[in-house]
């Protein structure tokens, strides 16, 4: 008895292990692949003081429909696949404003907006750019209760879309009972980003202090905000807004560090370079950065130049100010810039916009400086003040819309006028940063930084505290300036952001339930036919008949 128990144990254990193996097999049987797998990017989801905007859901599990769907199709359990090429913006606008129920939206963008693709630009880009920008502005400011995703066109998706269109036109939309394509995005529900961090980077180039001079040297600040905001945070590269400003700032820092490295050519001004974050959110980062200045530094700043979008202009730039143009510093700066501009063939205009302190909207970076009582101006190609989340680096702001010559000319303009002011050569026709000299503007430096910026999405809430790009900017500033300080601040409470910006979309081709029912019928009849055939050939026809006639024959016998 005991021996048998001991013998049973290993048998039992092996049985248990077999059962466990079976369970493991059952569990991991969901590893089947889809026909097509595509990277998709979600529309941004955010709240302003609790008011929701953007796409509020992330998970998707519905059938796909194209724009040619038959009337009467159930849209609340379907995903509309819309290529941006065929986009009818008023239709989408009506759909969103009427709050019609929909399972999801998938926008297909042309490959030219894909910073990872190596395709050269094609025709009709300007047209697409405007359409995409308008679509973005529409989507950002609407509360959409279903998932909205962006994807790039490629061959797989195009064939799938053509198939869907064919099915829809023939009047058979995809649902559970008919076949078709099913789009599945399986991600977790989006959560709030806990404390979105804004990182401001500042670099300091000290000027030459004369011996025995007790006074502090005056300072000139050059500032650019480097972060972006767009409809798809994972795709918001903002090459022009404000990648061009960042590149110009870095190049100016490089040129002046060359000048300042030699004590004989060091100017009597300190230079403060600032790369600020939080630009789209009323320049919140700049506000916090300025608040952290101590009083002495604030008093020594003569004026600040803010750079915003200087990468795609032809021959006209604007200086935006909030202090009246009669102010001495503003007058000086503007005259300096316009004189140099004349020499370079650039028309520089002046625009004055008063600040309204009660209005919390800050349209330009210099307005934050003005609120902190520092004279400042913004140099930009944009002529009118942008609204909330306009010109903040949209989807359409890709590398091929930025002209590096424009950036080079801007750098020359700013550097020359600054240098003439610092070294006291105002009004004189001297070219400090001449093209063939050792202080020439370096086009390949500008090109490589523009390329890098056009491939990095820089939406501040989604940049972590030690994000590699921010560290790279800091390191670059450290090469050109001394005393680089990285300051981390939390984004102001009225903006809340939600994560889940990138996902993978699985496209399955599913067969309908009716197909399987039909198949069951066919198989059932096949097996019955096989059965009858085998009975007839091996046992004879009588046997088959007797299978069905047994009860009556028994009755005959008993009778």
């Amino acid at each position, binding site marked *: 008895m005991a021996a048998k128990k001991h013998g049973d144990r290993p048998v039992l254990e092996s049985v248990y292990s077999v059962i466990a193996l079976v369970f493991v097999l059952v569990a991991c049987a969901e590893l089947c692949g889809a026909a097509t797998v595509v990277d998709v990017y979600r529309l941004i989801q955010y709240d302003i003081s609790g008011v929701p905007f953007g796409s509020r859901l992330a998970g998707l599990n519905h059938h796909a429909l194209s724009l040619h769907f038959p009337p009467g199709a159930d849209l609340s359990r379907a995903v509309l696949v819309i290529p941006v090429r065929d986009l009818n913006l008023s239709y989408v606008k009506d759909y969103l404003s009427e709050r019609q129920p929909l399972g999801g939206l998938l926008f297909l963008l042309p490959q030219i907006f894909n910073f990872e693709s190596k395709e050269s630009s094609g025709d009709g880009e300007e047209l697409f750019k405007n359409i995409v920008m308008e679509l973005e502005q529409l989507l950002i400011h609407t509360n959409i209760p279903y998932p909205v995703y962006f994807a790039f066109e490629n061959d797989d998706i195009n064939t799938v879309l053509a198939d869907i269109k064919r099915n829809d036109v023939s009047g058979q939309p995809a649902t559970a009972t008919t076949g078709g394509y099913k789009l599945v995005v399986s991600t977790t529900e989006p959560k709030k980003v806990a404390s979105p961090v804004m990182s401001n980077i500042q670099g300091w180039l000290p000027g030459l202090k004369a011996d025995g001079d007790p006074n502090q040297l005056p300072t000139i600040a050059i500032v650019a905000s480097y972060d972006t905001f767009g409809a798809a945070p994972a795709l918001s590269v903002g090459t022009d807004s404000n990648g061009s400003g960042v590149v110009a700032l870095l190049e100016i820092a490089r040129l002046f560090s060359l000048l300042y490295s030699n004590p004989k050519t060091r100017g009597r001004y300190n230079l403060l370079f600032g790369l600020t974050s939080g630009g789209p959110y009323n320049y919140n980062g700049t506000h916090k950065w300025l608040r952290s200045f101590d009083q002495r530094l604030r008093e020594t700043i003569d004026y600040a130049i803010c750079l915003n979008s200087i990468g795609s202009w032809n021959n006209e730039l604007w200086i935006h100010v909030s202090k009246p143009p009669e102010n001495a510093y503003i007058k000086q700066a503007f005259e300096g810039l316009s004189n140099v501009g004349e020499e370079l063939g650039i028309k520089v205009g002046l625009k004055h916009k008063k600040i309204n302190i009660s209005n919390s909207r800050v349209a330009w970076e210099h307005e934050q400086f003005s609120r902190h009582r520092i004279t400042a101006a913004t140099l930009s190609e944009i002529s009118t003040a942008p609204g909330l989340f306009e010109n903040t680096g949209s989807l359409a702001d890709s590398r091929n819309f930025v002209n590096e010559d424009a950036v080079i000319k801007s750098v020359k303009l700013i550097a020359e006028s600054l240098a003439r002011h610092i070294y006291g050569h105002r009004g004189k026709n001297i070219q400090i940063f001449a093209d063939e000299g050792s202080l020439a503007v370096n086009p390949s430096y500008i090109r490589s930084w523009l390329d890098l910026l056009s491939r990095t999405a820089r939406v501040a809430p989604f940049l972590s505290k030690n994000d590699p790009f921010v560290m790279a900017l800091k390191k670059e500033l450290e090469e050109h300036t001394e005393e680089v300080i990285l300051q981390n601040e939390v984004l102001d409470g009225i903006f809340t952001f939600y994560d889940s910006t990138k996902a993978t979309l699985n496209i399955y081709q599913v067969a309908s339930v009716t197909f*399987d029912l039909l*198949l069951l019928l066919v198989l059932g009849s096949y097996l019955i036919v096989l059965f009858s055939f085998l009975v007839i050939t091996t046992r004879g026809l009588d046997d088959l008949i007797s299978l069905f006639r047994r009860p009556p024959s028994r009755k005959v016998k008993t009778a």
Partner: protein
Amino acid sequence: MTVFHFFNCAILTFGPHAVYYSATPLSEYDTLGTSVKAALVYLGTALVKLVCLATFLKVSENESFDPYQELLKALIGFIDVAGLYFALTQLTHRNISQNHKFQAVGLGWAFADSVLHRLAPLWVGARGLEFTWDYILQGLEANANLVFSISLAALGSLMWLRKNKPKTLIPIIYACAGIVATMPSITSYLRRGLGWHFPKVVGFELFTSLAMAFISWQLFSACQRPSA
């Protein structure tokens, strides 16, 4: 819905075996034990084949047809025939007639083949959302395989169990047995060398299986006449 599809494909792959067992006199004579033993012999044969394949074959990078490799695979395929010989002759069966013995052995052989080769892909693949025709075609292939196994078992029993055969038929019997035994090599040549698609290959298999079954049935009844 997709479990439904799995159920359908499972019926197609394994149903005919059950139907064959219940429809023919095999169920009356309770030959289940023979089939089970044949299935176990198939398992052993498959293991031996695996070891030989692993030892002797090189893994090719592309899907092309390499004659030397295919020849090696065909030679290893003859281990199948050896296994069938073992199952037919060496195992002790209850007193059942030769007619039913080869059917039971063929049935067990084909059932084990289907389970080993087709159950796992079916379980993992047919339950997913994505629909392909592959699993239905695999089921049809299982059907063709059943017919092949029974034909091979019939020819095998003719070759090894029947002592008095008409002299003229002997070479035909061996030739047919050879063709059926090398079917796997032929299908892989069609798929890789000629580049046929799966549905075409399955169609070819079904057609040849029916043809072979007919021929072996004729041979079997021809050999049966003298003793009758």
